[in-house]
Each structure stands twice: as C-alpha cells, then as structure tokens.
C-alpha cells in the first residue's frame, strides 16, 4: 500500500504527458519540428553528459539498472526564448514535461520501466501582416499560422544487470498529433470576414533501442546505446506520408576521481539525412546527420537538511537536423545549439524523494538568425 501513491502519480503523469517538447523554439517550424531532449533535471544540469547513465533519462535502457526498487519520476521544464526576426522581436515562453516514468525492480538483476518522453516538438505560431488587393483596393490582412502538438516517445524498457556489465533493451512507440490552424483576419475592413482552416495530423512510428553500461575500471563506467527507428507515419483525414527516422548512437563515460565528485560526458550521433528524400518530396529542405556533445561535473559540496546536495555544471552543443530557410532547391542554413547548464539535487522525505533543479542558458543559431533561451528544470523522483 505504501507504493500506491507512487504508482498513481506515475500513472497520472503518463496519462497527462503532453505530446510536446521540453523546449519550444521558433526553429521548430522547419522539417519535422524541433528535436527534443528527453533528459532529467539532473542530466540537464550536467549538460546532458550524464544522460546515458541516468535512469530517469530515456536515452539508454541499460541505465534503468540504477533502480533498486520501485520509483516514479517526472520532469517539468519552463523555458523562455528571445528571438529577433528583424521585422520585430518576440519573447516566447512554454512549459513542458520532458520525461515522466515509472520503474520497478523485478528480482535482483532485472528492472522494467515505462517512460513517456518528448521526441519532436511541433508547437509554433507565426504572425504575418500583409496588404492584399483582392478587389483592386488594398486591404490589410493579418495571418496567424499555429501548430500545437508533437510526437511523444512511449518506451517500455528492461535492464538486466550482470557482473561488470548491464544490458538494456527498449521498445519505442511514437505517437502524437498536431493541430495546425491558419487564420486570416482583416483588422481594418469589416466587410471581409475572417478565414480559418484547420488540419489535424496524426503521427505514429516504432523503434527499438539497446544499451549497455560497462564498469571498465574502478570508478569508471562507459556506456553506449543505439536506437533503430522505423518510419514516422503522418496521416490526415484524406492523405498520408511517411518519413524514415534515423539511427541514433550514443556513447559516453563517467568517472569519479574522488568520492562525491563526478565527471561525465556523452557524444551522440543521429543519421537524419535518411529523412532527406521524404522531406524534399514534401517540399522541404534536406535534413542532415547531426552530432551532439555534452559534459558536466558534479561535486557533493553542499548539504541541505543534513543530506548531501550535489552541485552540477555542464555544457552541451548539438547540431539540429533541419536547416532554416531552405527548400528542395536551396540549401538552408544549418542550425546548431549550445548551452551552459547548472543545478543541484537534494533528497527529502527521508531519502524517499529527490528533487533535482537545473537551469541552462544558451542560444541557437542558423545563419544570421539566432535565438537565446533559458530553461529551468524541475525533477521529482519518488522511491516509496
């Protein structure tokens, strides 16, 4: 019965997980959207460098072996963006829930888990004003095109612990939808009525991931994961299309030179160029293969309520696969992102709950366009 609250909280979290991203970006309007980072508060504060070993991140199924009992966790991320479009700047904000999950140890070696994490963010809204002359007389037209939704990655995973090595496997179901609405108004001429058209697109796909953690030396752990994805199928009421999704490979390590200190890093690769032909067929620019790097340091220097509260700092950089401003005939500007991160974590409720706080600040750049962002992470883990 003591596990009931956690089970209920985890179930509610899974049910409420929105098909949206941890971070929204104005650049999500291109390609398949904005590629999400399904990391925990702890991994976010470490620049993503620990994501491969983090049981609460959805990158490596082998990392689930960290759980020794039952656990539920959820992460909330609030983000502020600032973007200058030349024709006007805008401040954007969004709150998302990047990862929620529930795990339970089944025997001394096996852990099973279910997670829901963001995969593609397709939340964006663009406002344009133009002057048109449908009847020869100029009239101001204001257009807003808005997309709400995205693709969520539901993962059922298993980790198996052996001596010196842990293996994991995860089955992924991609699901979600977007509701795209285009709305035109004529603010200065009431003779013209507003126009609205809406399209709901449903997404589905599958994938499988494998992971491993190896204790290669004392206080040194190496890890790797690989994920094979199928095609992402997009369908509306009267049409459908599909896009092949990439092979994703991640590798990393962490090292504890002394007790209470952790140094970690992860490198990732995703072969997004496999989606190029499908995107070109849809009138978009070619996607590219992308790399990501993240590393961080954690030091247990602080105590909160008698418990150690590790301080974390990190840095990350990544390429994003969908160029900005391109078309099938024109190569767009590649988009990349980097951020500095920091945070801390502390236990509460007698060690049965952990709160992880993280904040990162960075920018995304594509040619002459750039966006700055600050994202705050709040993670809660309950181990009844």
């Amino acid at each position, binding site marked *: 019965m003591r596990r009931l609250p956690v089970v209920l909280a985890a179930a509610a979290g899974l049910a409420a997980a929105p098909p949206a991203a941890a971070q929204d970006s104005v650049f999500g309007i291109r390609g398949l959207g904005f590629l999400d980072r399904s990391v925990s508060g702890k991994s976010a504060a470490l620049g993503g460098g620990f994501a491969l070993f983090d049981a609460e991140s959805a990158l490596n199924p082998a990392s689930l072996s960290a759980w020794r009992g039952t656990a539920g966790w959820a992460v909330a991320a609030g983000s502020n963006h600032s973007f200058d479009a030349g024709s006007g700047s805008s401040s954007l904000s969004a*709150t998302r829930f990047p990862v929620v999950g529930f795990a339970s140890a089944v025997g001394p070696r096996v852990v099973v888990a279910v997670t829901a994490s963001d995969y593609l963010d397709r939340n964006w809204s663009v406002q344009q004003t133009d002057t048109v002359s449908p009847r020869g007389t100029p009239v101001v037209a204001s257009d807003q095109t808005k997309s709400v939704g995205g693709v969520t990655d539901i993962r059922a995973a298993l980790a198996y612990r052996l001596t010196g090595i842990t293996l994991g496997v995860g089955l992924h179901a991609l699901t979600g939808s977007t509701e795209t609405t285009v709305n035109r108004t004529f603010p200065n001429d009431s003779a013209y009525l507003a126009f609205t058209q809406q399209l709901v*697109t449903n997404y589905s796909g599958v994938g499988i991931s494998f992971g491993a953690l190896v204790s290669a030396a004392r206080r040194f752990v190496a890890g790797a994961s690989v994920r094979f994805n199928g095609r992402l199928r997009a369908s509306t009421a009267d049409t459908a299309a599909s896009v092949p999704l990439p092979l994703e490979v991640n590798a990393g390590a962490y090292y504890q030179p002394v007790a209470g200190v952790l140094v970690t890093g992860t490198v990732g690769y995703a072969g997004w160029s496999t989606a190029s032909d499908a995107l070109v067929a849809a009138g978009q620019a070619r996607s590219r293969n992308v790399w990501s790097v993240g590393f961080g340091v954690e030091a247990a220097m602080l105590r909160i309520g008698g418990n150690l509260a590790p301080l974390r700092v990190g840095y990350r950089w990544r390429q994003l696969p969908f160029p900005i401003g391109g078309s099938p005939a024109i190569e767009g500007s590649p988009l990349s992102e980097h951020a500095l991160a920091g945070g801390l974590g502390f236990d509460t409720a007698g060690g049965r709950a952990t*709160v992880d706080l993280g904040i990162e600040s960075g920018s995304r750049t594509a040619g002459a366009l750039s966006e700055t962002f600050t994202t705050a992470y709040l993670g809660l883990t309950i181990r009844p």
Partner: protein
Amino acid sequence: MSAWRSAVVVGLIAIAGCREQLTTPGRCPELCPRGNVQLADTLLAAMDVSDTSVRGYVLVREASYLMASTLDSLKSVMLIRFLKRDSVWYPDATDTAYAGQQDSVVLSVVIAQRDTAVKQLRLAIYRLPALLDTAATYASMQPYFTDPFLVDTVTLADTVQSGTVTFRIADSLVIPAGDSGVVSLGVALVSPQQTVLTVGSGNLGTTPPNLAYFVHARAPLDSISKAFQEPPFVSLFVMSPPPGQPPAGVLALGGIPTARATMRLSLPKVVVDSNNIVRATLLLNTTAPAGGFARDTFTVIAQPVVRDYGIKSVLWPDSAVSGAVRIAQGQSGPVELDIAPILRFWGTTVGDSTPRLIVLRVYPEGSILGSVSFAGRAAGAAGPQLRVTYVKPYQFGLP
C-alpha cells in the same frame, strides 16, 4: 516532508509556472509556414435565377407610426378612433358620478420623426364618423377633411423634434349621443412646405395617441372632476396614391405597406460548400431614388430563408447570418450588400438543407418610411450580380 507532500509542492510549482507564448512575428521565408493564404475573386453574373417582390408584409394598421404628408408625390392623413369614453364613474364606495360639464379635451401624440428643416407645422384636427374602420381610404375620407368637420388647428413648435406633445383642442368637442362615447378624429398636416410627419401608432412598442377628457360630475357631485384617458381603438393612416404591388422586374423594398424582395440564387458548389468565403457582395442597381424622410438613412438587410413558402417564407432568425447596407434617401445607382455570412451559413450542416433563397427587406420593417427598388434579373446586365472573394484551399503539407 513526506513523499506525498513533496509531490504536491513540486506539482503546484510546476502547474503555477505553466504558461504559453508561442507566437512570433513571421520572418519570411526562413521562418514562415510553407503554405500561403491565397485570395481569389470572381463575379457571378447570372446567379439570380428568379426573383420577385411583394408588398404587404407590414400593413398600414400594423405600422409603428401614423403618417401625415403634404408631398405632391404622397398625400397622407391620420385616422384615429378612440375608445369609448365612459359617462359614469365611482368616486367612492357609496357614490355614483355622472359625467357633466366637460372642461377640456387634450390630444397627445408622440412625434416619431419630422423634417426639422421645415418650420411652422400645424395639425388640423377633423371630426370623423365615430365608427371609423380600417377599410377607409384617402378618397373616402376627403369629405371629412373639410371646414365643417374641423375641430381645431394646433401648432407644433419648431423646437419639438421628437417626444410627446399635447394639444388642448376645442373644449367644445362633444360626443354625440348616438356615438355612444366614441370619438374618431382625423389629423392632417398643414405646412408652408411639402413635408412629412410621423407619430407613434401604438404598434411595435410605440406610444399611441391619447385623448383625455377632463369633466366634472353632474350635481349634486359637481365638485368632483375626472380625467378620462382614451387610447385608440383603431389608428391608421390613408394615402394617395394608394400603395400597389411593385411592377414586374423590380425588387421593391420598404415603404408602407412594406415590400420585400426574394431572390433565388444558383451558386457553384465550390462556393457554397466551404467556409473559405471572406467576402460576398450582392451588386444591385436602383431603379429610382430611394424614398424616405429627407436626408434620412435606413437599412436594407438580406436574410436567408429557412423554409420556402413563397411570400410567407420563414426567415433564419440569427442576425449574424445576414447582410446589411445603409441607404440614404434620394440615393440612386449601384448598391453593394455584403452577404458572405449567408453563403457561409449555406455551407454548414444546418444551412445545407435550406433553400438558396434570400429575402431583402428594410429594417426595422414597419417602423421607417424608407423605400428603395432595385432592378431584378429581367434587367439583364443591370440586374443583381454576386462578387465573391474566397481563399483557395490552404496547402498545409505533410509531414
């Protein structure tokens, strides 16, 4: 802190922090959607496949006003039959008073509209046969608008533009014994210039004329007085020339009795079966300058028909599903009436089953003098046309 409490606190913080602001100014083409909103415009010249106009929707006796006119083009006088005045009343539980000496008689009317540029208006009040009825005509009433039947002539102050005015008319206004307490009066307008005056009739929420008798009781209760207030039993006006049905091929609207026009439209399926229409303008041409009060304006509206029962067709009551245009008295030439909401209504599930039929009428019907007539489809190129501006289907794109 328990795990439960931690979860609640963290959850509240997360929920309280939820906010969304996603809209950015478009920087095109880099950060704009792939699709464009494209407008197209087309003129449907032959969409009016049949039309007609009928007068008589609001009759003279149902109008909200009584009209007196001295125009050469329209002569009109008011006819009012007041309710019977009692000759007995009961000042207390034990006394019965009988009407004796009549001290004064006051006629009240509520001015609805007048041409304020015309001064020195007077009302000539005539005695009419008591049992006046609605079959009276302008011609049949003329013998009574002569000096032998003149009761009084009162002056309407030039400063009075609207509202209630009272006139003390001849104290000697007697009620002949044979008329059983009933008085009918005719009111004609006397003016140095041609003009029109309207007063409330009591219909459609307006205040009717009123006749007040101030009387003393007979002896021995002759110290007691009473004011009898008598509203109309019948109030109408008659005019010359008498209104007739609109000529064939003309879409007449308004006037009194009011006229409406009906147009059956034949529209391409693509126009009706979408909500992409942003503007649809009915292009009409007047056949004569619009009528009505000098320098006044009135509204012409278009409404869709729900059930087609000919001249008694049922109109869709939602005012949002309509079109309207203001017409000025004396206006002539082309008139543009936007009816996009009606075309959109026909594209809805509810509107899809309704006939492609619209009714044109003045608004508020029966309460204004305004009238206008448009060329019907028989006029060929001068007949009604429809100009439609619509959005081409938006290309969202996949994925």
